[in-house]
């Protein structure tokens, strides 16, 4: 398990991580989200002991990374951001070296290497130099290095970066398979990945944690969460919008798409009734009316809306500074 308390780290005048605290329990998969430069990698580098924090503590399985670094590092498997490895070594000798560094000997060593090779599908390239491999294989070689000693804690910095969709899927499956017995943190830019593989997500921006919850909880923060999407026959959008807005329980109404004889509108909840309850009421109210109801859906909210609403990309910041 991982415990992070009031972590702070700055490089020069740039504060990379500012008062970050969270805990991850065994069995949890924590998705670490945030725009580039938000402090994700820095936080992970502090937890794994690659760099020291200016203030605050990080501990892994009860071992403080600053005070008992060796004990803590024994329990961590780490995939750094660019998945570095010694390019002039073959996959087999690289993994052999990692096993030696992890203190594995004899049968345990052989078994650990075989399992990691198997889990990362590296069997076909064992004797090849890492330099000569494709990016996907190089990435998985480094991932194999991280899981080789069957660590209690896995810290993966963008584990699916640069992989093709099939490989991405495999890595997510691997993370899910391993999650039962381990504590896992992984960072990503891909929001579907969070919904697919994480039990919880943290969004970090400008060095601060701006959201922390299950993917469903985060989605509920989207303003679209609880809204109802209606598809109606008939082309008269302005009148249609006004008519729906006049129905009880409806707040704002927006036209999503209008094409010929069909209009799609989104009705935001105006009262306490949301989601499917609101959808049921609207369906009843519109039944037999002027516009035939073709489809109706209660919206869950979308993670990328939440992400955009609470984080600021570098581009936006630059534009803001320029104007």
């Amino acid at each position: 398990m991982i415990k992070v308390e009031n972590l702070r780290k700055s490089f020069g005048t740039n504060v990379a991580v500012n008062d970050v605290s969270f805990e991850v329990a065994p069995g949890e998969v924590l998705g670490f989200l945030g725009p580039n430069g938000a402090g994700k990698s820095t936080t992970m580098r502090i937890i794994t002991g690659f760099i020291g924090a200016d203030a605050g503590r990080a501990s892994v399985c009860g071992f403080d990374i600053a005070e008992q670094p060796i004990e803590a590092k024994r329990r961590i498997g780490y995939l750094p951001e660019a998945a570095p490895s010694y390019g002039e070594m073959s996959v087999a000798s690289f993994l052999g070296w990692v096993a030696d560094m992890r203190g594995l000997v004899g049968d345990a060593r052989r078994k650990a290497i075989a399992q990691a090779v198997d889990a990362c599908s590296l069997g076909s390239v064992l004797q090849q130099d890492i330099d000569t491999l494709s990016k996907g294989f190089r990435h998985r070689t480094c991932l194999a290095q991280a899981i080789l000693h069957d660590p209690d804690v896995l810290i993966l910095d963008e584990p699916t970066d640069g992989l093709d969709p099939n490989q991405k899927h495999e890595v997510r499956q691997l993370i899910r398979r391993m999650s039962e017995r381990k504590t896992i943190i992984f960072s990503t830019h891909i929001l579907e990945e969070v919904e697919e593989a994480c039990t919880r997500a943290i969004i970090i921006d400008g060095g601060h944690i701006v959201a922390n919850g299950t993917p469903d909880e985060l989605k509920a923060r989207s303003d679209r969460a609880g809204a109802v999407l209606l598809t109606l026959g008939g082309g008269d959008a302005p009148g249609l919008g006004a008519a729906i807005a006049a129905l009880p329980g409806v707040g704002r109404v927006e036209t999503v798409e209008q094409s010929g004889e069909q209009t799609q509108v989104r009705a935001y909840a105006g009262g306490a009734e949301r989601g499917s309850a609101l959808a049921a009421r609207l369906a009843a109210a519109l039944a037999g009316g002027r516009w035939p109801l073709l489809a109706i859906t209660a919206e869950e909210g979308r993670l990328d809306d939440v992400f955009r609403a609470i984080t600021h990309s570098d581009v936006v910041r630059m534009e803001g500074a320029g104007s």
Partner: protein
Amino acid sequence: MSAGAAPVRAIARRELAQYFGSPVAYVFLVIFLLLAGIFTFTFGAFFERGEASLIAFFTWVPWLLLFLVPAAGMRIWAEERRSGTWELLLTMPVTVWQAVLGKFVASWGFLGLALLLTFPFWITVNWLGQPDNGVIVSAYIGSWLLGGAYLAVTCMTSSFTRNQVVAFILAVVLCLALILIGFTPITDLLARYLPIDVVDTIAGFGVLTHFDGLAKGVIALRAIVYFASLIVLPLFVTAAVIRNRGR
């Protein structure tokens, strides 16, 4: 002890494998032996001396190693920094000191091998006459210690930067300074302006002063302590630099 030595061994083995897995080792060995031969038999006037000793070879060792050791060692940390592999290495359960030591030991061992491969010189001189083999052993030990000192300095400069060329140049400059402060033409020059005690003290920090003794068969404790410090001190700086990464 054994628990602490295992990662050092693993790191050292990997370093050695890296030397021999790339052309670096072979290029280094060939060039070292070639230059050693040329310097010994032409500029060193091995035959013209008419004496059964390897002094013609050992005179050139400090100058040969001055360029070859930094060339062999410049990548030791700079390459780890450039390729980001030190993030792997240093998040393994090893101390910084173990990593620094493992890398140094491997390269120093390689250097020892290079020196041993000059054995044809030793055979030649024993075939031609009756040299004092004790002196030769002492001179070999001196050469290895000197190479170790250069190598430790190179490790240090290599830890400063991710650029191997910068590491090489810095190492050559520092090692050259260590030679020159004890080099007779320089000390003679200094003696014109400074009291002789001061010049002697300065020369005492130079590698030549101590190496010459060992090359002549005088295994002085002072020389051993000198070279040991010159190995340990830069390695401590290296460890401190690596420990302060990311600040």
